[in-house]
C-alpha cells in the first residue's frame, strides 16, 4: 500500500468516526420509522399475537355485534393500559396477566363459549390493559410518538382482523374444527408462557 492510499484510508476512517449518525440505517425515528417501529412492536411477541388473534376468533364465534365490538374495545382499552405503562403507574402481575389472557381467550375459542356481550367485553378489556401496559412500558423514546402510536394501534387492529378472517371459517363444519384447534394452540401457548 503506498502512502497516498494509506492517507486516504486514514482520512476516510476519521471521517466515518466523526459522523457516526450518518451510518445508522434504521433509527426508528421520523414518521416512517416511528410507524414501522410501532407496527412491528405488537408482532414481536408471540404471547401478544396469539391473544389478539384470539379476540378476533372469539368475536367471529359470537357473531354480531361482538365480532366488531370486541376488536374496537381491545385497542381502546389497550391504549389506556399503554398510557399507564408510559406514565409508570404500577400494575401488578403484567406478564402473568398476558399469559393468562392467552389461556382464557384460547379456552373461550376452543369451547366456543357463548358469553353475554357485556361479559365478553369485560374479559377482553381486562386483558387488554395488561397487553397495553407491557407495550407502553417498553415504548421507545426515540420514535416519533404519534406515528409510533398509529403503527401500534393499526397492527393490533389488523391482528384482530386476522382472527376474524380465520373465524369466518366457522360456517363450515371442518372450519369450525380448525378454529377450535386454533383456540387449543392459543391456550397452550399461553400456558407455555405462564410456566416458562
Amino acid at each position, binding site marked *: 500500500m503506498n502512502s497516498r492510499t494509506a492517507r486516504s484510508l486514514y482520512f476516510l476512517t476519521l471521517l466515518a468516526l466523526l459522523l457516526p449518525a450518518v451510518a445508522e440505517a434504521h433509527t426508528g425515528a421520523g*414518521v416512517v420509522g416511528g410507524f414501522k417501529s410501532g407496527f412491528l412492536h405488537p408482532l414481536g411477541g408471540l404471547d401478544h399475537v396469539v391473544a389478539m388473534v384470539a379476540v378476533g376468533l372469539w368475536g367471529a364465534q359470537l357473531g354480531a355485534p361482538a365480532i*366488531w365490538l370486541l*376488536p*374496537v374495545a381491545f*385497542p*381502546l382499552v*389497550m*391504549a*389506556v393500559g*399503554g*398510557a*399507564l405503562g*408510559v*406514565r409508570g403507574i404500577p400494575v401488578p402481575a403484567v406478564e402473568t396477566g398476558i399469559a393468562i389472557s392467552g389461556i382464557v381467550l384460547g379456552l373461550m375459542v376452543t369451547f366456543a363459549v357463548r358469553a353475554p356481550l357485556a361479559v365478553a367485553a369485560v374479559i377482553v378489556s381486562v386483558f387488554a390493559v395488561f397487553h397495553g401496559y407491557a407495550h*407502553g412500558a417498553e*415504548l421507545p423514546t426515540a420514535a416519533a*410518538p*404519534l*406515528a409510533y*402510536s*398509529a403503527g*401500534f*394501534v*393499526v397492527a393490533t*387492529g389488523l391482528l384482530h382482523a386476522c382472527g376474524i378472517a380465520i373465524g369466518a371459517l366457522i360456517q363450515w363444519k371442518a372450519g369450525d374444527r380448525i378454529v377450535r384447534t386454533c383456540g387449543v394452540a392459543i391456550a397452550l401457548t399461553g400456558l407455555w408462557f405462564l410456566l416458562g
Partner: protein
Amino acid sequence: MVPARLRRLAGAAVLATATFPTRAFAHTPSERLGDFWGGFLHPLVSLEHALPLLALAVLVAQQGRDRARTGVLLWPFAFAIGAALGFTRELPAFLPTANRIGFVVLGGLAAASWRLPRALGSGILIAAAIGHGFENAAGAIVRRPMLFGAGSVTGTTFVLLLLLGAVVSLRAGWPRLVPRVVASWIAAIGVMMLALGR
C-alpha cells in the same frame, strides 16, 4: 481530436452543472405552486391533523347528508379563522393538548356512532377546525401566509368533502362499521398521545 472550443464548452457545462446542484431536484412542488401547494399538503401529510380530520368526517357523515353539507360549508370559514389566528398570535400552550383530546373525542363519538344535537355537532366541527387551523398555521414558516392559509383551507375542505362523500354513500351494515372501527383506532391513538404528553 475534439476541438478546443468544444472542450471549453463541455468544461463550462460541467462547471455550471456542479455550481447549481439544486436544479437537479425532480420533485419540488413548493417551487411550482409556491406556498399554496405547501399549505395544501401540510395538514394532509401531518398525522396530527389528518387523523382527526378523518374521525371528524366519519362523525359528521353519521349525522346525515344535510348535516354533512352544512359541515362542508362551515369547515373552510372556521379553519380560515384558525389559520389567521395562527399567523398573527402565539400558539396557546393548551392548544396541542386540546387537539390531541380531539382525537379521543372525535374518534370516540364516531366509533359510538353518536347522534349529536345539531348545535353541538356544529360546535365540535367549528372548534376542531379553528384548533387545527391555528396549530397548522402556527407551525409553518412561509413567505406568503395568505397563500399557505388558502392552500390549507382548500386542501382540508377538499379531503373533508371526499371523505364525507365516501362515508355517506356507504351501505348500511358491514360497510358502515369499517369507518367506526377506524375511528376507534384514532381514539386509541389519541389516548396514547395524551399519555406521551406530546
